[in-house]
Structure formats: C-alpha cells, structure tokens
C-alpha cells in the first residue's frame, strides 16, 4: 500500500486545498489518471496519480487545506491481474476493502500502461465513478487529449478502454482511423468548460483574495529567484522574415483550426534549441545542476485579471509544429478556464515567455526556481535590419536568455540563442 500525497505544484506551493475527488474507494486507477482537483493559491489544478492501483481510503475531505506531502488517499496494489481492474468491475472486487490487502507488495512496479488487455473484448465500461457532480467528465489521459486535439477529435466522445473506461491514446487513434467519432466542434474548450463552475465551489476564496494570494505567490518565488540565482542575461535579434513567410504559406493551405501562430513557431524553436543545450534545460537542486533528459517547456501565460502561470508542454522538442500549436491552444484554454493539471505545473525544465504581438520589445527574464534558464521573446515588429551592406525594414524578434551562472556560462547561452536563430531561418525543420 502506498500513499497518494498532496503534490508540490511548483516551487512556490506549500499547501493546497482539496476541491474535489474524482475517484472513490475501490476505483481502479492507472498512472496518469486525474483523480482530484486542488486549489493552490494560484489556480485550480487537476492532479494525476503516478502509479497503477486501487483507491483504498480517502484521507482528506473536500474543502480541507493541507501541506504539501500530506497523504490524501491510500493506494492499494493492483490485485491479481490487470483484468480485474481493467473491466471497470473494480468497485465490486474484494480488493476494494482497504484493509484487506494485508501484506502488500507495495513497491511492485507499475504495470506498463501500453497494454489494454481487454480492449477488444470488453465494451467500453462506464467509468465506475463518472463524477456525477459534473455531469460528465470522461477520464482522458493527457497524452490522449493532446493527440485528440491534434486530430480534431473530441476525446469525450471516444469509447475508452483504459482503466475505469479512461480514454487512452490508442483509443483516440483507433477512433481517428475508423472514423467512429464525429469531429469535435471545438476540440478542447468544451472539455474544459464544464469544469469551470466547480471553481466556484465552497472552498474557493473570493476573487480579491485569490488575486492577492497569487501576487504573493509570484512575489515569493521571484524574490527567491533574485536572491538565490546568479542570473546572466543575453539577447539576440532574429530576422523573422523567413519564418513568417513560411508560416503564412503553411497557414494559407489550412483550415482555421489547423493554423499555427508565430508564438508556436518560437516555442518550437526554443524547445529544440533547449534540447541541444542540456546545461540550460533542467534544474539546480541540492547544490548542483541537474540537467533534465526531456524538454518540458514551461509556457508563461498571463491570466486575465492579473497574475501568470507557467505550465509545461511535455516533450515539446519532439512535437511537430501542428501538435505544439494544439498543445498551446489546449493549455491556453485550460489556463483561462482554470483547469491546469498537476503534472504540467510541477515539472517544466525551462520556461519561455513570449510577450505577444502587443507586447514590449524585449523581456529581461527572471528564472523560475529551480529551473536554470528562461527564454524570452519580445513582440515581432518591423525594424531596421542591416544585411549585405544595406539597411532595410524586416520583421524581427528580440530573443533573450536569462540563465543561472551556477549551471552555465554566457558561451553556452550564446550557443543556445544561435541555435534558436538558426532554426528560425529554417522553419521547415520545425514542421
């Protein structure tokens, strides 16, 4: 048996309020399932579980504020075969009794999630606890949601074969190839929208309280950054002529939902550049730099009404532009609707802030601890540009890098910015 604890959703979080349980004792859960929502001082976050198992006891009641690390629920190992859990019959099985599973192989490795044993045989089980509170909220793995967004499928309409009827990536791909699912009107916004009312639940602080709490959380984190991180700053001007022309040509052939905006291109280039410079992608913790193996690209997004969050797009360096745009759109919509996920909040390895087409010329970044770098893009504007002995007007963007001297030097940072520039001169590499 193990405990499912209040996760740390960013370095600035010390406690969270449990807003809602999406599971009940006896429910089978798989790694990646969304099991609860939590109110940090910044936002409502949907939190995932990181092991397979069966929910034992719920230890914390809705509306309770508890410190990070507090056990929220007990998780029992998956009993017998995956079949017991996979067919949605879990609530009826004996394993549902919390105390019964006495000598538990607590550390048994999670079963690989790639297998859906009963996929073909079993009809899509009704999710054992289909969250009656919110009408319908099909469990959809984040990956499946991302893939669905890319394919223009509403994941809520896909029959799920995962644990408890959860929709997996395979389900989405199957639905796409067999065409069994009507295209979504708006792939992701509807999925997020029904959750919005939940934000107004009893545990919700008043708007003014939330704003001041958010301001304090940002202030505390940035003060820590300025206090602890020896920043250095670099900037480079990038000619965006080729990138914008390529993007316009690409978009002209596509229907509106498939089009990408320049910000997505900048993110794609930043993620790929970060992947090549590991000393700028990762963390500084326990007194040493800890380069990350993946690029989980934090995207700083302003909240309407003030404040900002920087949730991650996972493995952003490996996403083609279309997928990255879908992920960005999904993230933006969910940030606005207040439904970020725990894993997105917890693990960005480098953050990008893009001021947008109405923004200032450049940003002097402040690193999000424990990350070691932040890439910033100012507004793309026409500026004088010298090339070939001539000065002309070209669309340009000023890219900046704030980086932690404990993890890298200006030479490393310059190479990252140079790679960023190179990629934007060859945007087809980002497709």
């Amino acid at each position: 048996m193990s405990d499912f604890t209040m996760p740390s959703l960013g370095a600035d979080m010390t406690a969270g309020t449990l807003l809602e349980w999406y599971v009940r004792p006896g429910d089978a859960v798989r790694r990646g399932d969304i099991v609860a929502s939590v109110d940090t001082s910044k936002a409502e976050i949907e939190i995932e579980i990181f092991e397979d198992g069966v929910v034992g006891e719920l230890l914390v009641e809705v509306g309770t504020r508890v410190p990070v690390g507090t056990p929220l629920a007990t998780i029992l190992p998956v009993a017998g075969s995956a079949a017991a859990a996979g067919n949605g019959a879990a609530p009826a099985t004996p394993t549902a009794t919390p105390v019964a599973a006495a000598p538990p192989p607590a550390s048994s490795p999670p079963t690989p999630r790639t297998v859906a044993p009963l996929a073909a045989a079993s009809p899509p089980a009704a999710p054992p606890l289909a969250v009656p509170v919110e009408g319908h909220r099909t469990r959809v793995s984040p990956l499946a949601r991302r893939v669905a967004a890319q394919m223009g499928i509403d994941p809520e309409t896909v029959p799920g074969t995962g644990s408890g009827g959860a929709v997996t990536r395979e389900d989405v791909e199957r639905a796409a190839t067999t065409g069994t699912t009507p295209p979504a009107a708006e792939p992701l916004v509807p999925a997020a929208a029904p959750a919005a009312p939940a934000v107004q639940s009893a545990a919700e602080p008043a708007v003014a309280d939330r704003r001041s709490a958010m301001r304090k959380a940002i202030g505390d984190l940035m003060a820590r950054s300025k206090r602890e991180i020896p920043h250095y700053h670099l900037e480079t001007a990038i000619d965006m002529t080729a990138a914008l022309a390529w993007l316009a040509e690409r978009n002209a052939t596509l229907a509106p939902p498939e089009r990408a905006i320049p910000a997505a291109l900048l993110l794609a280039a930043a993620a790929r550049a970060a992947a090549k410079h590991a000393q700028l992608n990762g963390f500084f913790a326990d007194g040493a730099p800890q380069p990350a193996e993946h690029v989980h690209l934090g995207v700083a997004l302003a909240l309407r009404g003030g404040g900002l969050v920087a949730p991650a797009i996972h493995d952003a360096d490996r996403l083609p532009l279309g997928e990255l745009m879908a992920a960005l759109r999904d993230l933006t919509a969910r940030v606005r609707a207040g439904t970020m996920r725990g894993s997105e909040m917890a693990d960005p390895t480098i953050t990008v802030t893009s001021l947008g087409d109405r923004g200032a010329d450049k940003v002097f970044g402040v690193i999000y601890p424990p990350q070691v770098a932040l890439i910033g893009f100012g507004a793309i504007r026409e500026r004088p540009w010298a090339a070939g002995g001539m000065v002309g007007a070209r669309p340009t963007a000023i890219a900046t890098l704030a980086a932690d001297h404990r993890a890298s030097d200006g030479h490393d940072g310059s190479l990252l910015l140079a790679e960023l520039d190179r990629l934007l001169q060859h945007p087809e590499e980002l497709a």
Partner: protein
Amino acid sequence: MSTTDELRTQVLEALGAIAPDADLATLSDDASLRDELDLDSMDMQGLVVGLYEATGIDVPERDYGKLDTVADTVAYLAAHRPGGQ
C-alpha cells in the same frame, strides 16, 4: 442563412469562449476588440476558429486585421457567408 442578428450573436459567443471573463454586454459594437478585450494573436486565432466552427466561414489569415470590432466582424461574415452579398 444567418441574419445579421444571428451573426452578431455568434460573434459574441465566440468572443465569450476566448474571453470568458469579459463583460460582453457592455462591449460597444465599435470598440476595438484587441484593445477592449486585450486580445492577443492566440485569442484572435481562437476567435477565427470559433467563427469557422459556428458559421463555416473561413477567414483567411490575411483578413484577421479586418476583424477589428464586433461591427466589422459581423459585416465581414455577412459579406462572406455562402451566397452573401
């Protein structure tokens, strides 16, 4: 075929989806959307997608700048709807 009023409703619904907290009731038809609602390029892209899904009208990227106000947007859609004038 949509009447102008229906188009206006669709425009406001699409705006409501991208700016859920905006008070659209007080939004003047002639106010700049980008300024009044603080819309960025992601929001504009979202608006065009919303309009496309609601009306089937595909606003090409080069025309995004013509969607400056609610009135402009309604007029643009009216002119570009199937069989429009």
